[in-house]
Each structure stands twice: as structure tokens, then as C-alpha cells.
């Protein structure tokens, strides 16, 4: 049997552990059965749809324009997701959209401009998904932390403004903290990669029979691209949000603390 062709029987076998989770939930009255069943069903349906769509897009005769369209859908969906997760920050969807486009643009320029990967559907869609997905997580953390800090540090910011500091100077300490908090998980992930769990791309490539050394090189390249693009995304989202928090006549705009999600 090939390691990449598990078939529906293999998939069904993996559901055995889901049955254990449901059993545990029933036994301990955790009331998680429905949530688990719902998550499993959604994951299956979403992945099957994505698989079908990928089948269409990855067809060698298909125009690359379809892949670019897919990338656009990824970017817009990620921007909408950030808006949902940090709705207290007005304009967050636009700032996230710009942030992802810049981060992705820089990344794809490196990847395809320097011939790290060949520009084809098989590389464009997964690399874009990985870049935007990770940038999205960092952008959400940054936006939520910044909204939280701006709400919590109102007195500090106004005290700085009252000394004649510009809005950007007054907000700098909060902005710096938010950007650091947004980026640190990604830095930690890069630092500890391989120590606890093998990262997904590498695991997938090794399971597909690729030489581990080649798999490591691909994984490392992707990790560095992800870190770089996340840094671009959190900086853009942070600066944009900070700009919005002070009016043109240098008054601080009240920011609500983000709600729990």
C-alpha cells in the first residue's frame, strides 16, 4: 500500500478515535458530542470540496488565472475572518486586506522571482494559503491586542498627547507591544520547529516519499517566508489601527475592549 493512498477505509479507520472522543464525552457528560460531530462533518465536507476544486485547478491544461482567482478568494476570506475576530477595530477588514496583499506579494516575489519554486498552480495555491493563513493568525492577535491596549492605556496615551507628543509618538509603546505580541507566537513556532512535532509540510512530503533532506529544505524555506510575511502583516495592521486611533487634530479616539470570541 502506498503511504499517500489511504483510501476511504483508511479515513474511516481514523474516525475510530473520534468515536472514542464521543464516548468519553458521553461518559463524563462533557456535552461535546454534538460539537465534535459537527466539527468532523464540517472538516470532511470542506476538505472534500477543496479537494475537488484543487483537482480542477491543478489540471495541467487549466489556465493559471484560476489559481490566482483562488488566491484572491483566500485573501478576501482571511480579511473577513479578521473583521469577525476583531470587530472593535474599525477598518480592520481593509487593513487586513492590504496587509495580506503586501505580505503575500513580497513572499510570492521571493518564491517565484528567485525560483525557489516554479510558478504553477501546484505551488501557487498551497504556498499562498499557508502564507495568508499564518499572517491571518498573527494579524488577529495583533489587532485584538492593540484594541485591548488602547482601551487599557487610554490615560497613558492622553498623558503623552498632553505633553505635546504627536499621535504616533503617543501610541508607539502600545503599538510596539501589540506587534511584538502578534509576532512572538510565530517566532516561537520557528524557534521550536521539529523539537516537539514535525511541521505539516515536511510530514506530508515525507509521507509522500520525498527524501527527508529535500523535505526539510522546503519546510525551512516556507517557515522563513511565513515569518517574514507575518511580520509584514502585523506591522501593516498595527500601523493602520494606530493611525485610526488618533484624529487629524491629535485627539485620542476611545477604543472598546475586544469581546471574547
Amino acid at each position: 500500500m502506498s503511504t499517500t493512498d489511504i483510501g476511504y477505509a483508511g479515513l474511516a479507520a481514523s474516525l475510530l478515535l473520534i468515536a472514542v472522543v464521543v464516548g468519553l464525552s458521553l461518559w463524563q457528560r462533557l456535552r461535546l458530542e454534538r460539537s465534535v460531530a459537527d466539527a468532523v462533518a464540517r472538516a470532511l465536507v470542506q476538505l472534500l470540496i477543496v479537494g475537488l476544486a484543487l483537482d480542477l485547478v491543478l489540471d495541467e491544461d487549466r489556465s493559471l488565472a484560476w489559481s490566482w482567482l483562488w488566491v484572491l478568494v483566500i485573501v478576501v476570506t482571511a480579511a473577513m475572518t479578521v473583521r469577525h475576530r476583531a470587530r472593535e477595530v474599525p477598518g480592520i477588514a481593509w487593513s487586513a486586506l492590504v496587509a495580506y496583499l503586501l505580505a503575500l506579494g513580497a513572499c510570492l516575489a521571493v518564491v517565484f522571482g528567485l525560483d525557489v519554486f516554479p510558478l504553477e498552480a501546484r505551488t501557487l495555491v498551497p504556498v499562498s494559503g499557508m502564507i495568508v493563513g499564518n499572517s491571518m493568525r498573527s494579524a488577529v492577535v495583533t489587532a485584538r491586542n492593540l484594541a485591548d491596549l488602547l482601551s487599557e492605556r487610554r490615560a497613558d496615551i492622553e498623558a503623552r498627547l498632553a505633553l505635546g507628543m504627536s499621535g504616533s509618538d503617543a501610541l508607539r509603546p502600545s503599538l510596539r507591544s501589540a506587534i511584538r505580541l502578534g509576532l512572538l507566537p510565530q517566532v516561537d513556532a520557528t524557534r521550536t520547529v521539529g523539537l516537539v512535532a514535525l511541521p505539516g509540510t515536511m510530514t506530508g512530503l515525507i509521507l509522500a516519499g520525498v527524501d527527508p533532506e529535500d523535505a526539510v529544505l522546503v519546510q525551512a524555506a516556507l517557515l522563513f517566508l511565513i515569518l517574514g510575511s507575518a511580520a509584514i502583516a502585523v506591522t501593516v495592521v498595527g500601523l493602520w489601527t494606530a493611525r485610526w486611533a488618533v484624529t487629524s487634530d491629535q485627539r485620542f479616539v476611545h477604543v472598546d475592549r475586544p469581546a471574547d470570541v
Partner: protein
Amino acid sequence: MTEPPTASGPVFGFVGVEVVRGGRRVLHSLDLELGPGLTVLAGPSGAGKSTLLRLCNRLDAPDSGTVRYRGRDLTTIDPLELRRMVAMVFQNPVIFPGTVRDNLAAARPARPSLIAESLDAADLDGSYLDRTADDLSGGEQQRVCLARALCTEPDVVLMDEPTSSLDPRATKAIEHEARMLVDAGHPIVWVSHQLDQLRRIADEVVLLDDGHIVAQGPPHELDDTITATLEET
């Protein structure tokens, strides 16, 4: 401290000033002039005192009407320049991370000697400079805030209930420093809702209630009105 401007006329003028926040009218078509000396804005909670104070350095903006500083429409003055001429001390001490020196340096004093001069004007000696500001008592922190405000060489100092979280001794110290500043020619606008305090410190009182001016004048002339308004709440 630089010499205060000698321009005659009111320090602040308010013409038809209205402020609406969250659908509530905080100040109602206010006409008012604030002169030199120590003016106390008094009134019960929610009267609009702090909002009125924040209009003076443009931390807040009116929805309609005009605010003037020494005859100039505030909107024609760069807010960053204005805030260095019209300094502010807040209700609770707002201390920045680091030492007292770091806090004073944050005000970007125009010359190094201003740090020592401002510290002295706030009745703190040089030994405080290298102490961690966060470790000081509430009263000392508030004096650091006053010194930091003075590092901008302001003409006027706005004080938003600066002693509300302080003990009587620290309160007295801040009141004393404020009086010294007024005597040196720097007008002070001070928000308070404490009857005893305004009797102690005010040259003039502006009494506000629900966004309206109820009375204005020297405290001894308004004693009954002030007592009635403040004790009502």
C-alpha cells in the same frame, strides 16, 4: 520656567460651546471667560467640569461654538504646540515606565536645566531623579507628573482633580505648588468637587451643574450657592 505672557484679557474664552457625548448634552451653549489666577471648575459629578477642562488643550473638541486661548481661536493653533503652552495634570498620576528622569525627559524639555527647575517647582529634590517612578508614593508620583508638565515650560496648567487620590498631606503639597505657580504668573484651571478645597485655593470659582454655568465669581461671594449645589449631590 519661562516668563508667562503678559497679554491682558481672558486666558480662555468659550462662545456658544456645546458638547454632546453618547447622545447626551454634556455642555449646553456655554459662554464663559476664564481669567488669570487660580480658577476652580466646581460642580457635582457629571456637571461637565472635566470636559470643559479638556477643551482647553484640545484633548476634546466642541461639537459647536468656539474656544479661544488668549484671544486666538484654538482651532487655528497647532494642537501639539498648544499642549506645550497649556499643560495638564490628570486625576490619577500617570507614570511612564522608567525613572523619574525618564519621565521628565519624555516631556522633551527645551534645555537640560529645566529638569532640575521643574523638579524643584514640584518640591522634589534631585535625589528623586534616578528612582524608579513606579516605586514612589501616590503623592510623589503626582508631583512627578506636575514636574513633567512643567518641563514643557507652559503658560497655563490644567489640573483635573489632581488630589482626589492623595492623602491630606500630599494634597496640601500639590495645592501649595499650584499657588506658587499662580504667584509666578501662571494661570491654573483646577477641577474640584470638594468644598473645602475650593475655599482654600480658588481665586475664582465657576460652578457648573448638568452642563450649565450656575455661578461665577470669588468663592466668598458664592459660598451659599456653592454649598447648596455641591451638598445637593
